[in-house]
Every structure is written in C-alpha cells, then in structure tokens.
C-alpha cells in the first residue's frame, strides 16, 4: 500500500461505474468538489478521454477505465484502488444499457449484453468488494435500478428483466451482508428530465418494424413519444437525482429500496394497492394507443 497523508486516509472511498454520461457523469461532477470523500469514477475506454478532459485527477479524485463486462478488469480496478487508498466504502453500480424493443424484436445476443451490463457485471463488482467491506465491518452497495425493476411496460421487457434480476439479488444481499455492517440500497429511478439521460438502444428489428409499419410498430409509435413526453414533464433533472444519491451515501439509510423520483413512489403505490388481476388491465387502458396496438394483426374480440 502506498503511503498517503493522514488527512486523506480517513476519507471514505466511493467507486462509481458508468460515469461517461447521464447520472454517473452528474454524480462525478457533484462529488468532484467534495473534499470529504475520495472518489474513483469509471467508464468504458471510449468515454474515459472525455472524463479526463472535464475532470482533474488528484490524490482524492481518480479516473479509471472499467468495462463492467470484464471480470478481470473489475478485479484489477478494485485491486488498484485498494493498493492506492487502502479501502472501499461505497460502490455505486450505475453502468447500464437500455434496449427498447418488444420481446419478439429482441435477440439472445442483445438480451445477454443487457443482462451482463445491468446485472451480471454489477454482481461481479459486488463480489470483488464484499471481502474488503466485510474485513472493514462497513460498506455500502448502491445499485441503481429503475421503475422497470418493479413493473414491466411494453417495449421495455428485456430491460425490465435485467432490472428485476438486479433488484432480486440486491434484496437477498441486504439480508446476507447486514450482519457485517454492509448496507445495501437500491435507488430506483423513474422519468428523468434529460434528453441524453438514458442510454437507449432501439433493436434492429424495432427500427425496421417502425420504418415499415410491421407487427408491433404501433407500440413504438405510441410508447416512444409517450416516454419522451413524460421525461420532459418530469420534475427530476439528473442533478437532483445525483444529489439524492449523495444523500443516500451520507445518511446510509437502512431501507433497501429508495425512490429517487416521485413517479417511482406512485407506481409502487399503485402496484401495492391494486390487485394484480386488475393492475395489468388498468395500465393497458391507461397506456396511449393501446386500443390500436397490434394493428391489422389484432385479434378481434
């Protein structure tokens, strides 16, 4: 371990993934001026250069390349940071990808990439830091999830599956790590007021179906503008969510799930009070254009 000043040694170490854009970037920006933390921000190779241009590295703020799909890379980064700073106090699993496409327009390659980015990668990072946190008898794992982690909407099925996986594992982890003083929090995001917020990828087939008005095209033509409209109406800009996450780091709440935007709270409330056999029909009738979904292939009732 390298020698460091006593002043730095006592500051908690925060590791954040997916800082190349969106929430991760805002979080990095908000923490870059915080003298009371040591922060490691990470991103994939092609985004690291931009981070180096926009942030100044010093003895309490570092930038590293991290591909969450690469276990060896994860272990190397955790090993390096332990070597330099001697501990890891908080990880924020923020890196994610969001495919938009009905299940029929997804493929196993895209499904796997999404699952690896949103679930398997974050779990590898958790496994890499758990022995360190257990040794410390303290630590905090913050997994960034979504309203898609509590319910699923059309064209978001595969993304929703990956976030449900993350939520399920996080819930188990809450019980498993509690005795060791390790906090586990899921921060659930809903609609965020930012054009560049979500790293949304439209699958090949989704694009083609939209272009040629194939089966399911009505879903894209109604859901995409609807989601964009709700994002514009959202009262939660990414800066506000970044500040909420810093609040979670500072207060270390014992609750597992934390709603970061008001719509998450609302959706969760509806999901809890409305019986499940009514819930899907309720959303079906509430979603825009649902009565014309299926187009000419629709089964006449």
């Amino acid at each position, binding site marked *: 371990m390298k020698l460091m000043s006593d002043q730095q040694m006592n500051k908690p170490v925060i590791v954040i993934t997916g800082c190349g854009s969106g929430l991760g970037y805002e979080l990095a920006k908000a923490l870059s001026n915080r003298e009371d933390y040591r922060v490691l921000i990470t991103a994939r190779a092609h985004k690291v250069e931009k981070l180096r241009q926009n942030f100044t590295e010093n003895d309490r703020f570092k930038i590293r390349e991290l591909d969450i799909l690469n276990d060896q890379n994860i272990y190397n980064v955790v090993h390096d940071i332990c070597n330099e700073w001697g501990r890891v106090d908080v990880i924020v699993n923020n890196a994610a990808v969001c495919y938009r496409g009905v299940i029929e327009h997804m493929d196993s390659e895209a499904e796997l990439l999404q699952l690896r980015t949103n679930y398997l990668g974050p779990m590898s990072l958790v496994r890499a830091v758990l022995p360190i946190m257990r040794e410390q008898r303290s630590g905090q794992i913050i997994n960034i999830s979504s309203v898609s982690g509590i319910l699923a909407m059309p064209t978001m099925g595969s993304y929703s599956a990956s976030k449900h996986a993350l939520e399920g594992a996080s819930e188990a982890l809450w019980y498993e790590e509690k005795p060791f003083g390790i906090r586990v929090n899921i921060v659930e995001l809903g609609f965020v007021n930012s054009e560049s917020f979500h790293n949304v990828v439209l699958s090949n087939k989704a694009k083609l179906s939209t272009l040629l008005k*194939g089966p399911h095209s009505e879903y894209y033509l109604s859901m995409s503008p609807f989601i964009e409209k709700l994002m514009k109406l959202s009262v939660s800009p990414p800066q506000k969510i970044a500040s909420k996450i810093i609040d979670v780091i500072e207060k270390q709440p014992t609750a597992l799930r934390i709603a970061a935007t008001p719509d998450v709270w609302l959706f969760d409330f509806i999901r809890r009070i409305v019986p499940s056999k009514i819930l899907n029909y309720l959303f079906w009738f509430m979603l825009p254009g649902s009565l014309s979904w299926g187009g000419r292939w629709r089964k006449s009732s």
Partner: protein
Amino acid sequence: MITKLKKVLIVEDDLSQKQLWNFVISRVSESAEVDWAVSSEQALTMIKKNKSLGKLYDLLIVDLFLAGSETGLDLLKSEEVVSAGPKTILVSAIDQKNFEDQLRQELAHIKLIIKPLNIIKCENTIVELVS
C-alpha cells in the same frame, strides 16, 4: 414445372411455414433441393458453404424478421447475396405501401409477398420470378 429451379434457400424463423413452402416448391419443381435457415447468420453460412462446393442458390425466399440479431434486409444487402444475385422473394407482415415508399428503390429486383401466405400466392410469385 420449372426445370431450371435446382436449389432454393428459405430463410424463415416461423417453422410452421415449412410444410407450406415445401409443398409450393414441390409443385413448381420436382427436382429442386430446399434448404432452410432461421436466421440471416445461418443463411450466410449456408450460402458460403455451398459456394465453396460450387453450388449456388437459384432462389432465395427471405422473411424480414428473423431469429438472431440481423434482419432479412441485412441478409439481402450482404455482399454474399448481392454478388451471387439469386432471384429473391421477400416475405413479411409489413405494410406494402411503406415497403414501396421506403425500400423499393434499393430492392428493385425483389418480389414481395405480404403475409398471411397461401399456396396460390406463393406459387404464382415463384413462377413469375423464375420462369
């Protein structure tokens, strides 16, 4: 009967269509050999393998939405298919007007069959294209 139809590749992930296509091909050509692929990736492998054996497909029947990450459009635009230049039929459930507006220019040589399929429609399209 179209005697010059020797080798056909059908690229379709809906296997319930297999019986219909086999029947249609047997009606238009007694000797035609039919291969089946469910994805663009699998079709390309078969095209390359047959090419290395000196065999070329006379007719490609391609669905637009396939298994795998690529679409029928990717297959039709691939170098292997463009350079071999087989007669081609695109099969899909898309809106015909949108196809004509958006893709007809770059796929001028292909025939389009809009689903749902029926034997007469498929047979007539093949005869018109190949004979």
